[in-house]
């Protein structure tokens, strides 16, 4: 007997992500899913961003790693609410894992919730968690061929931060090529060139992020 099913396989996760989304909307909370390869600078970007924004914007962070709470400890030093998820082996965060952290936050008191995903240029792009947008970091030490090699990640992200530009003199990589390749895959991507080490380029990122939070508060 044949049964016609016609169901999205990721429907269960998508449904949880939608429920998360509804809860976030109730609190006019902007949620950013931050992704990159391991070591590209997610936690460093967050440290810089939180330092710059925390007087104006109330920030909370969900840290995702396979093991270790080192990232959560770094963020905790900034005296903002942070929860560490250890997946134990899963290569990405999903809607369910995010939902399980809600009791640890006062969501009503937050303006911006950042989900720092597991370091991985492949799987996190596949799974919604209820975010408003996905942001990704590519550091210049990773090479300018990465957009072509990891198209889904670049396609799904609204924002690309090209990090470690202070190292450009030492690598065979150009930001022009990264831009060109990324925009082929995602012509509407907003791109920032930054160095979390020197602080270059970060002001524009802070302004953009503040604007994202402000626009959701109005709505």
């Amino acid at each position, binding site marked *: *007997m044949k049964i016609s*099913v*016609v169901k999205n*396989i990721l429907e269960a996760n998508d449904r949880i992500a939608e429920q998360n989304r509804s809860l976030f909307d109730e609190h006019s909370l902007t949620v950013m899913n931050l992704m990159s390869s391991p070591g590209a600078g997610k936690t460093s970007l967050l440290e810089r961003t939180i330092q710059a924004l925390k007087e104006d914007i109330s920030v909370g962070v969900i840290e995702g790693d396979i093991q270790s709470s080192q990232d959560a400890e770094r963020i905790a030093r900034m005296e903002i609410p942070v929860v560490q998820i250890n997946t134990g082996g899963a290569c*990405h965060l999903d809607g369910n894992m995010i939902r399980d952290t809600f009791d640890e936050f006062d969501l009503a008191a937050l303006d911006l919730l950042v989900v720092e995903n597991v370091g991985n240029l492949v799987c996190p792009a*596949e799974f919604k968690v209820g975010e408003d947008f996905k942001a990704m970091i590519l550091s210049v030490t990773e090479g300018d061929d990465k957009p072509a090699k990891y198209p889904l990640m670049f396609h799904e992200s609204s924002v690309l931060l090209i990090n470690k530009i202070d190292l450009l003199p030492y690598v065979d990589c150009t930001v022009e090529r990264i831009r060109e390749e990324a925009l*082929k895959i995602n012509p509407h991507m907003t791109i920032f060139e930054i160095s979390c080490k020197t602080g270059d380029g970060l002001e524009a990122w802070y302004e953009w992020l503040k604007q994202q939070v402000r626009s959701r508060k109005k709505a």
Partner: protein
Amino acid sequence: MHEMSIAQSLVDILQEEMVKNNAGSLKSVKLNIGKLSAIVPEALSFCFEIIVSGTNMEGADLIMEMIPLKGICLDCDQAFEIEDYAFSCPHCDSPNIRTISGQDLSIVEMEVE
């Protein structure tokens, strides 16, 4: 390997449908796998086999149809296949395109006894 969590989601849906339809065993499942989903069919097959081993779905055929990535240009109205993940119109170079197929990961049909 996230094909494992996708295979688990697939099995959960199939189990639900089998109970709903009072099915005894699963013979085959047809899936649409969009090119953008970045799923490796062999990996999904492998994970599926592991999960259903020893269950009433063991031995079922996983039939996967790969759906190409297609778009339509919102400026010149032309439809086209998106090559090399270049998300712009090959006819007029516009970046204003809408993806019309190749994004989904879905079950189409299952055959049971």
